[in-house]
């Protein structure tokens, strides 16, 4: 099994390095093919490992070599394939295989074709390190590695100002969270003496609660950055500047879920601190609603999907925070499939529309892009959580968890959000595929994507539909590692009322969205309608003015303070005082050199003056000595 582990881990690295060899050369189709092949081999290995785990083959654990060893610190490159990591590996390799294949078509005309595959495979490698590591330090390697790849890929079109800006924003925001994570690692190390998962978690129950709480808080701060939780969420929407396959892979399916993975992985830790868990859940619920609300009015197709991702991440955190780790992981998996599908579909639309992102400028695309239409609709259905699609099983479960745990406020929020989700998803679908063919006004001739791209997407479509049926198998598998709490609503009546009620609510939202946006009277908004001028709309459209606030109260002051530090403090105070001391010495020399007038008379006068001065001092001292024998002590008291 170790062989498969190594293949799963290193095939993406090989793929990345191989593609990197051709970064400076023009597009080579085979880089894409080879890269896809290698990623698929990683997928196959992951499947083998999954089967191995499912058959009760036990955890696969390898220690490749020592990484750092000093003092009492010992960090190996250790990798583990257990029930949790194999789930993540499946998600990662599956989605990335699809995205690789898809990208061969999507990036067809791009100059940086080879480079793209190099980055993309590097990302897969980092992600695999992240999920497979058997210790926190290794997780951190992957953690930072995906951050780097995300930076590279968001800024892939580096000639675009907005893309590079977004890339830097994402990297820096993540760094803020990484600091929290790092502090969490330090705490773990100094209190348990190790960074290995098993040993560290084994030691935690004996630690005092305050420390465990701090560890939990700092680790969660780390998770907040990667999973773009409030208030570190702004980068995710901006990250949509990257190529769409990147958004599908990184900013929907894998990297942003790393935070959830971290919390799930640290379940023994978070089990000890339910109050932190509650905070996580509350923040998750807030983010779910908050993000969904912004998605309601947005006019950028990719951003809408990004906000939806954010909202779903909130769901996952609710589950994880309430201790239903397996539920969180399940939703993570299901979400990965339909969200990636949604993004890839959006990619098709963008391709067809020549990178147009405003759905109001589309409409009626269902005719030229039939397959894409079907896929996106089904993905949206799954996202909305309609039975029997994947979203129903995973998302409703989270609602149930909140209900069973008696967090009714959370439950209400999540339920309401589910309605919003359905609305904005179908608002998007309706605007893009239904109604008048508004794109004609802009002289665009849309066409369907390559066939192999669509075929490539099909596994995702399949999984988006059927993933829910794996629930029990999955449950049995992961609960070997995670707390096996089943969330059943005891009263059958309540259960049915809730389920059907939810379905109805969601269904109504969908209908309302269709009614409002699928009709032929939709035009491209020009900022004159009443709704567009309402306060709520403006606030939502401007993302609650948060990016603006950050710009005004963090970015600008930082820049100004930097300049002040440099120009005022460094140059005018620190450096000037150094030069000032030198200047004083030099200036004193310059001023007093007049003493050397060159005139003999003056020189003689100086000499006499010196003697007379000494003489008068002598007289003073002599008199003093005569009248006080203490003078010596006084003078020696001066420290001479």
């Amino acid at each position, binding site marked *: 099994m170790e062989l498969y582990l190594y293949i799963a881990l290193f095939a993406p690295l090989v793929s990345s390095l191989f593609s990197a060899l051709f970064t400076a050369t023009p597009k080579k189709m085979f880089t894409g093919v080879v890269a896809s092949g290698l990623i698929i081999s990683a997928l196959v290995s992951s499947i083998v490992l999954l089967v191995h785990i499912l058959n009760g083959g036990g955890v696969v654990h390898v220690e490749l070599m020592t990484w750092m060893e000093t003092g009492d610190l010992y960090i190996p490159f250790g990798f583990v394939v257990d029930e949790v990591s194999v789930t993540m590996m499946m998600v990662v390799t599956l989605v990335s295989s699809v995205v690789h294949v898809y990208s061969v078509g999507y990036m067809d005309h791009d100059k940086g074709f080879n480079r793209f595959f190099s980055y993309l495979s590097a990302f897969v490698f980092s992600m695999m390190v992240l999920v497979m590591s058997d210790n926190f330090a290794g997780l951190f390697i992957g953690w930072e590695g995906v951050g780097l790849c995300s930076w590279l890929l968001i800024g892939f079109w580096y000639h675009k100002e907005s893309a590079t800006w977004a890339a830097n924003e994402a990297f820096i925001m993540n760094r803020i969270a990484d600091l929290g994570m790092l502090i969490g690692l330090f705490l773990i190390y100094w209190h348990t003496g190790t960074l290995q998962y098993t040993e560290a978690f084994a030691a935690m129950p004996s630690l005092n609660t305050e420390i465990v709480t701090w560890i939990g808080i700092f680790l969660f701060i780390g998770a907040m950055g990667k999973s773009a939780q409030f208030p570190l969420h702004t980068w995710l929407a901006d990250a949509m500047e990257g190529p769409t396959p990147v958004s599908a892979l990184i900013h929907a399916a894998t990297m942003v879920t790393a935070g959830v993975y971290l919390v799930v992985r640290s379940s023994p830790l978070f089990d000890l601190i339910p109050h932190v868990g509650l905070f996580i859940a509350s923040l998750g619920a807030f983010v779910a609603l908050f993000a969904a609300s912004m998605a309601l009015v947005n006019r950028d197709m990719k951003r809408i999907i990004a906000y939806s991702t954010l909202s779903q991440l909130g769901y996952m955190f609710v589950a994880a925070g309430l201790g239903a780790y397996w539920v969180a992981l399940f939703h993570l998996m299901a979400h990965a499939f339909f969200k990636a599908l949604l993004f890839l579909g959006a990619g098709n639309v963008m391709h067809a529309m020549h990178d147009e992102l405003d759905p109001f400028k589309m409409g009626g695309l269902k005719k030229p892009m039939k397959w894409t239409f079907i896929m996106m609709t089904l993905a949206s259905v799954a996202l909305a959580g309609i039975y029997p699609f994947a979203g129903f099983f995973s998302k409703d479960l989270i609602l149930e968890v909140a209900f069973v745990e008696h967090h009714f406020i959370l439950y209400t929020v999540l339920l309401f959000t589910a309605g919003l989700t359905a609305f904005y998803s179908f608002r998007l679908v309706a605007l893009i595929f239904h109604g008048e063919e508004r794109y004609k006004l802009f002289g665009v001739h849309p066409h369907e994507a390559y066939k192999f791209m669509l075929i490539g997407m099909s596994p995702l479509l399949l999984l988006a539909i059927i993933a829910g049926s794996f629930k029990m198998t999955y449950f049995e598998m992961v609960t070997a590692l995670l707390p096996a709490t089943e969330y059943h609503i005891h009263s059958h009546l309540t259960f049915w009322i809730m389920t059907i009620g939810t379905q109805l609510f969601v269904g109504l939202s969908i209908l309302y969205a269709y009614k409002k946006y699928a009709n032929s009277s939709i035009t491209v908004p020009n900022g004159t309608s009443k709704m567009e001028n309402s306060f709520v709309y403006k606030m939502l459209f401007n993302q609650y003015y948060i990016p603006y606030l950050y710009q005004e109260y963090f970015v600008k002051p930082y820049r100004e303070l930097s300049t002040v530090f440099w120009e005022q403090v460094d140059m005018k105070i620190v450096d000037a005082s150094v030069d000032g001391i030198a200047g004083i010495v030099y200036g004193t020399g310059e001023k007093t*050199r007049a003493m*050397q*007038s*060159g*005139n*003999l*008379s003056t020189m*003689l*006068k100086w000499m*006499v003056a010196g003697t007379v001065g000494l003489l008068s001092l002598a007289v003073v001292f002599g008199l003093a000595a005569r009248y006080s024998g203490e003078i010596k002590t006084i003078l020696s008291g001066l420290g001479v």
Partner: protein
Amino acid sequence: MEIGLNHYLALSAILFSIGLVGVMRRKNLLLLFLATEILLNSVNIAFAAISHYYGDLTGQMFAFFVIAIAASEVAVGLGLLIVWHKRHGNIDLDTMSTMRG
């Protein structure tokens, strides 16, 4: 009133002060040399007086050496003075300040 050691010393001190003032005030090189002679000779008076007071010859020996040295000083000094006068036509101290700073 008998003239005692202190009178000699006082005379010496007065002469020395006169010499010092002369050294500081004179702008003429020749007069400056005279002032230094006064300084040295004021010391000589004191030496002789103290020597007498102690009944010891050392002080007088010192005075003789001072006289001898004063003489050679004058020789060198006048030599320099003459050369300066030859080249510049004056013996004014204020002309003697080409080097400064």
